[in-house]
């Protein structure tokens, strides 16, 4: 029982960042029909930027996280303008290939710039875990969960309450009609991709201090982000949130009770099962976002 509670807490912390990752990816697919292979690289980018700002430039920790996210947004916008905008008429496979190429470039540029040695991001939180009855959790992890939750909430509000959110949802449902109604699809796309990238970078910056920062850290994470959105139904925002937490719990519990070695494999097995049995995901994608 104690163990179960502990796994539940760990799963929630993990799930929060997974949801963050999944939302960015699913949003880009839902609105732009782009399978974004650079998502994991943006995550890595966010972590390295956090490292550079905190460890090298000695900036404030929180400020660094914010700046890393902003830089992620900028990189995302650049990718959209340079690569995706010229490819708007291309078929989905070609766009995927371009994104894979971009991921390859980004990852190896990072490897080149930072070297293969993993980096540590110092953080101002105490290293002693908080103990609450049978459960213990590191303050840093609680902080990560809180920020992830705040970002998720903020994102929902953005979609639900702002004009930009309305434009995005309109584009999601029917790009042609949205365009006729005066929504500037091009900019919605750029903003969507930039925001999705920003969320990935934020997740990287948040998790960087928890784990270590290395050029290949985005590989597994990028694939897991796919697992999350498939689980939830490609293109569904509530689905990505649920999928994120679901994957967090599955990994945590399966890793705890079944097999530690295969911990990371459960997510992928889950995708294969979901795709084989229920290809539309847990939450069908055609439902509205927001």
């Amino acid at each position, binding site marked *: 029982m104690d163990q179960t509670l502990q796994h539940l807490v760990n799963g929630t912390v993990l799930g929060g960042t997974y949801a963050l990752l999944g939302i960015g990816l699913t949003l880009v*697919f839902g609105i732009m029909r782009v*399978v974004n292979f650079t998502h994991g690289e943006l995550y890595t980018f966010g972590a390295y930027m956090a490292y550079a700002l905190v460890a090298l430039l000695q900036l404030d920790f929180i400020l660094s996280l914010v700046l890393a996210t902003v830089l992620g947004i900028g990189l995302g916008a650049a990718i959209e303008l340079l*690569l995706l905008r*010229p*490819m708007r008429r*291309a078929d*989905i*496979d*070609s766009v*995927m*290939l*371009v994104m*894979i*190429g*971009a*991921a*390859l*470039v*980004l*990852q*190896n*540029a990072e*490897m*080149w710039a930072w070297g293969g040695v993993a980096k540590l991001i110092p953080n101002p939180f105490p290293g002693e875990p908080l103990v609450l009855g049978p459960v213990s959790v590191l303050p840093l992890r609680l902080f990560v969960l809180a920020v992830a939750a705040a970002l998720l909430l903020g994102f929902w509000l953005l979609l639900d309450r702002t004009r930009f959110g309305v434009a995005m949802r309109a584009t999601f449902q029917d790009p042609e009609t949205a365009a006729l109604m005066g929504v500037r699809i091009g900019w919605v796309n750029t903003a969507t991709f930039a925001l999705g990238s920003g969320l990935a970078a934020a997740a990287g910056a948040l998790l960087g201090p928890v784990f270590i920062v290395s050029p290949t850290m985005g*590989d597994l994470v990028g*694939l897991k982000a*796919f*697992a999350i959105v*498939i689980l939830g139904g*490609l293109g569904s925002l509530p689905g990505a949130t649920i999928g994120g937490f679901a994957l967090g719990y599955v990994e945590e519990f399966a890793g705890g009770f079944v*097999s530690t*070695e*295969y911990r*990371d*494999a459960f997510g*992928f*097995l889950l*995708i*294969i099962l979901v*795709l*084989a049995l229920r*290809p539309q995901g847990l939450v069908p994608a055609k439902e509205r976002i927001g």
Partner: protein
Amino acid sequence: MSGGESANRPGQFMGYALPWGFVALLALVPVVFPDPYLLAVLTSAGIFIIGAISLNLLLGYTGQLSLGHVAFFGLGAYASALATLGFDIAIGFGLRLQVAPQPVWVGFLAAILVAGGFGWLLGRLAFRVRGAFFVILTVCFAQVLRMVALNWVELTQGPMALIGIPGFALWWPGEGVVELTRKDQNYWLVLAVTVLAFLLVRQLVQSRFGRAMVALRANESLARSVGIRVTHYLTVAAVISAGIAGAAGSLFAHYTRIIDPDVFLFIYTVTMVIMVVTGGKGTLWGPVVGGFIFGLMPDLLRGTAPPEVQWVIYGAAMILFVMFLPRGIVPALQALLRRRAA
């Protein structure tokens, strides 16, 4: 086919003399330039070209973007290595599965069968889901296999790698059945298998069977309306494609003599995809041309640039080709030749 192989008939010279002359030249390389480094580079390029040829069947002819192709390569490598090394594992209920070391040709067959079997499985599974879902499913499939290879230590030795894999054994003129240890022998073996794979795929795509695959790619609804069974043709294409990739994996295992779970890395799939896309998907020569370019590039860049830069160049090349020469080099050349001829 649609790339123009059958539409483009520049006569016997282009059809026979040129390709066979090219093969003859390649066969002479070890005699004329017995440089072990060059042979090593060409041999590993050849293994990847076989992989690219097999991927082209799915990616180019049926139009299915399979990004888990390295799974079949890796399965073939492990199947072949394990069959020749022998293994003894628990299979549950207190039972053990013991396999004594087998001759290499058994390993080679096992590689084709195991990879083909998984190709069938993935085909049945994946062709129910299409487009982006299919792509992600294939990526995950390879990833799961990599994790199995990493963690099923009893069978695969995990990250410690399978070592001491025997070399290919073949009858060799004047020597009887010997283990191929020399660079030139392995080179010729890979060249021969590459030519076989090429001929196999050519035979296939120029038949009624290949036409059905291309029809499915060009217009699935229309293809079904003329009676082409989608799942049947896609599954068979997946099986053959996987089987050839498995053969390439087997060659790889017995050539390098050591394999570890990294044979399942996504980057190898990407390499094969780049070869097919830049060379020209859906053309017979595309994977060969692309395979030579990207198979030799790392070694041309060696010494002048670190490996990361090589991969940056790969990635950039992929982007540029897809954006500016989306059909690839071979179709572009064919179009140029046709215009010259006209």
